[in-house]
């Protein structure tokens, strides 16, 4: 593949410029599939989606379709959805429950852990010569769950999930996990946008666009104009490209809230939604920086943790260089009252997803940005990510967590592309571990 040999020098993080070709080039895309999606840890599903043994859910790792399934030992397995015989898929429903995976072509039957159970004519036709043990469904190289969030990697050399996430990725997930006994609400919204996946990821850190892109939401009273200024921003950069950007809560206000909770004073909904941050558990899990963090994490490469409103995850699945699927997973606390859950669900239904009053207006911007990168002359000029560049300092909290207190900025976006380039230039996990950019420690 053309991409193989080249060294990518398309992200200039000194000047904050990113070459546009990375948003539409076919070779770059093939390269991303090989070096990022086939190598990294990818979000697959939440354990609550796999209630019992046999429960399954279909997802993708790049363009490889995988089945997440709870096996007989209650372990979650992640299997490539392709029969080793002629390559047919063995699961076509996007979710459900099954006793095994039966291939509709010749009837090879696979156990929930992928093992090849039965082969028609094993004696009659194969004369007992078929080594079934080598012909199970290919399983992901590693599968791990962090507080119920299931991830998988197809690369056996990948570090374990904990090392991969680091404290930043973990914090990202804690922003949902620490709210209670969380489960996925039935119903994943899925839609396809004609944009490059990176522009969708870039956007999740983007607190600059709401005021304009979502101006109509303010006009119809769904949001409050001033809310959209976002002057108190906290950015956290993590190893391998994870990052968090968005609102920061005030230490004092949280302390004060804790007191009011202790003294049993009654709270307005906005406060209520923050109470969990004042618990011991939360502080222990997330540290002093974590509890203050109200922003948007991205678990590299493509998992947005939308923790500002009702807790949701948005997975961005690449469909070629010019298309991306958005899959919305919505979470709720099992112990929440029906009324509370209903309110949260209503909000989730109306904010994001293809008909969401906010998200409606995002896709077209991304698709135009993607399309213009095909222009022969237009693409010669890089995009600009200089907002706040070299303006901000890293703070290291007593918790040893380092972060940036600032205003709306493009630090996280630039970090995303810089890390992306590290991945693209590494020909193995070894190389990536050795050569990836260190998290900045002084200024950004």
């Amino acid at each position: 593949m053309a991409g193989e040999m080249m060294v990518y020098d398309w992200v200039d993080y000194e000047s904050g410029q990113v070459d546009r070709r990375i948003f539409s080039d076919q070779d770059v895309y093939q390269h991303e599939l090989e070096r990022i999606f086939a190598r990294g840890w990818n979000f697959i599903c939440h354990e609550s989606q796999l209630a019992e043994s046999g429960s399954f859910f279909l997802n993708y790792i790049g363009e490889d379709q995988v089945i997440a399934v709870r096996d007989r030992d209650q372990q979650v397995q992640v299997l490539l959805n392709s029969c080793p015989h002629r390559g047919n898929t063995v699961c076509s429903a996007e979710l459900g429950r099954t006793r095994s995976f039966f291939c509709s072509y010749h009837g090879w039957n696979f156990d929930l852990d992928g093992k090849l159970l039965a082969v028609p004519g094993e004696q009659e036709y194969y004369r007992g010569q078929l080594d079934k043990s080598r012909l199970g469904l290919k399983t992901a190289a590693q599968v791990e769950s962090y507080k119920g969030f299931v991830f998988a990697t197809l690369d056996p050399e990948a570090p374990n999930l904990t090392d991969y996430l680091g404290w930043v990725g973990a914090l990202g997930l804690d922003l949902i996990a620490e709210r209670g006994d969380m489960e996925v609400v039935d119903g994943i919204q899925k839609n396809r946008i004609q944009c490059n996946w990176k522009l969708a990821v870039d956007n999740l850190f983007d607190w600059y666009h709401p005021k304009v892109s979502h101006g109509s939401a303010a006009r119809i009273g769904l949001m409050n104009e001033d809310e959209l200024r976002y002057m108190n921003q906290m950015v956290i950069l993590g190893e391998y490209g994870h990052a968090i950007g968005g609102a920061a809560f005030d230490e004092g206000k949280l302390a004060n809230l804790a007191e009011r909770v202790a003294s049993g004073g009654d709270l307005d909904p906005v406060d209520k939604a923050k109470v969990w941050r004042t618990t011991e558990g939360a502080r222990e899990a997330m540290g002093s920086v974590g509890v203050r963090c109200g922003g948007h994490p991205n678990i590299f490469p493509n998992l947005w943790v939308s923790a500002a409103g009702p807790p949701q995850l948005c997975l961005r699945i690449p469909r070629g260089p010019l298309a991306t699927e958005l899959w919305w997973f919505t979470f709720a606390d099992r112990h929440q009252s029906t009324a509370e859950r209903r309110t949260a669900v209503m909000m989730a239904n109306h904010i994001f997803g293809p008909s969401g009053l906010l998200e409606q207006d995002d896709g077209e911007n991304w698709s135009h940005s993607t399309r213009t990168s095909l222009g022969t002359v237009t693409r010669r000029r890089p995009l600009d990510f200089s907002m706040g560049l070299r303006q901000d300092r890293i703070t290291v909290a007593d918790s040893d967590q380092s972060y940036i207190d600032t205003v709306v900025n493009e630090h996280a976006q630039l970090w995303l592309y810089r890390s992306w380039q590290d991945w693209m230039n590494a020909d193995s996990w070894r190389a990536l571990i050795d050569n990836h950019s260190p998290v900045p420690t002084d200024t950004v």
Partner: protein
Amino acid sequence: MTKIADLSHNELMLLHFEVEQFLYREANLLDERHFDEWIELLTEDIHYWMPIRRTTTSNQPELEFTSIGGMALFDDNLDFLKMRVAKLGASNAWSEEPPSRTRHSVSNVRIVDAEDNGRIVVACNFQLYRTRLESEEDSWIGCRKDWLERNAQGHFKLAQRHIFLDQTTILSQNMSTLF
């Protein structure tokens, strides 16, 4: 079908004609972007709902649609619909600026029931075609169930609409229009 059964063929045909014309006028108001007039056709307690559809095996049909109160693509009361309409009218709702060109076509209209509360239940197929900008095209196909009731003046109002899209993964950038 209490009331319906009592109707003579001719009465049923007249009712059907009236219903069909109502649905056509309603569709036309959306295509002509007369959204405020469209809102006038709804009852105070309208429920406008499109569940999420999933590909499931034939032995698990219960998983095909999400249920009322759960995740959905539309789950609107009058307030939410007014918001959507206000948004469609706002010049800074970018997914509709320039405005989409839509065509709501309704077919196979059937009066399937009349409820004791006097509501008529109408089923139909729909095709919503949208084109935008130079050459973007979307086609949303499925069936609908509408509950109609008459107001004091005897005019129909839409009291409930359930929209069942045939697609599972939505192949569009957004759903910024009404169905």
